[in-house]
């Protein structure tokens, strides 16, 4: 008699813990969905274009791939301009400062700054985004030769669009 009562108490505690966990998980899911815009680290060029015109006072981050052949030095000799793309939309980014070592054409980057009136993104900081692929140089070489490399870059661009 008392044994079964103890058992039902344990079952009751189990249900209570399960219910509390479900409630907490639900609350967390709702909160994170509601604040999605502040949880995401950056916006893709598509999202920036969609949101534009963006108030120049608003600081935000843009993320995407540096488009091949678009990195140029402006006339003042210290500002670098390049196009950030997610293969659907592109935004030109201007930046004067130290670029991370991994910065190069085709690389994923995240820039922080604001949009100016001409639709150019003026960055105050540029970070390199590393992808999830780890391989020795020889493997990278052979992937480039076999043409599989473009597939990886296309995948990265797609991920940036999210």
């Amino acid at each position, binding site marked *: 008699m008392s044994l079964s009562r103890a058992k039902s108490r344990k079952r009751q505690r189990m249900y209570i813990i399960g219910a509390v966990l479900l409630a907490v998980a639900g609350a967390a899911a709702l909160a*994170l969905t509601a604040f*999605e815009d502040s949880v995401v*680290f950056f916006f893709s060029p598509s999202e920036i274009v969609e949101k534009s015109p963006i108030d120049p006072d608003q600081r935000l981050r843009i993320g995407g791939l540096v488009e091949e052949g678009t990195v140029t030095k402006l006339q003042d000799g210290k500002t670098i301009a390049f196009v950030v793309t997610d293969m659907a939309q592109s935004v030109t980014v201007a930046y004067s400062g130290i670029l991370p070592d991994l910065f190069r054409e085709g690389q994923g980057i995240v820039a922080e700054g604001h949009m100016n009136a001409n639709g150019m993104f003026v960055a105050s900081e540029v*970070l390199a985004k*590393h992808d999830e692929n780890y391989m020795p*140089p020889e493997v990278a070489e052979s992937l480039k030769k076999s043409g599989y490399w473009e597939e990886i870059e296309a995948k990265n661009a797609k991920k940036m669009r999210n």
Partner: protein
Amino acid sequence: MHRFAKPSVFLKLTAPILPWLAGATAILIAAGLYFALFASPIDYQQGDTVRIMYLHVPSAWMGLFCYVGMAICGAMSLIWKHPLADICARATAPIGATFTALCLITGSLWGEPMWGTWWVWDARLTSMLILLFLYLGYIALVNAFDDPDRGSKAGSALALVGAVNVPIVKFSVDWWNTLHQPASIVRMDGPAVDPSMQLPLALMILGFTGYYFVVLILRVRLELNERRIRALHLSGMFDDNAQDAEPYDPGHNAETSQ
């Protein structure tokens, strides 16, 4: 199952396992470090910096693994009131906290040369920092009560509620865009790490997991022995021995013999 959860059975079962587990762990970590530092290729992009990954990824894995273990022990301690579950949860917390801190520190050291920053508040890094705070909060909470039972109740509740953060850490890189790269190992398309780099990583992950269980067994045994000594003191067992042996703690004997 309760039969195995008895403290005496725990001591008897783990005693023969411990030296083997400790030996295997030492070999795994030594071999893992050798491959990680010397016998594995550099990365095409990161160069030698890739070697930080062999500490970072296993630490991250252990941070999550220990938390899941702690939360399960917390649930068992709340539901079945089993003292061994509570001891395991308390013993796990500092180990998990250390691994989580190691993960954050190595990640930061990698981020500076690769990303160009020590720290950003993206979803992965922030949720991992919250994991560390959950560990520290648990440790502070279980020790904040004079009555250890109340401490373990409050701590178990915190550990369980905090378990919501575990899937957030794991899937943060899929649910939101982050500066942190997506999963490289446990993912739909199979690992994105070259096989030559998977070996040191696997050795280190196994070694770290072994290390956790070695330290867990040692810490649980320590706590069980401490409790046994305390119980013996309280039962006045040492008073009887005092006649034929040197009294261990005369002051204590005087107190308990009253």
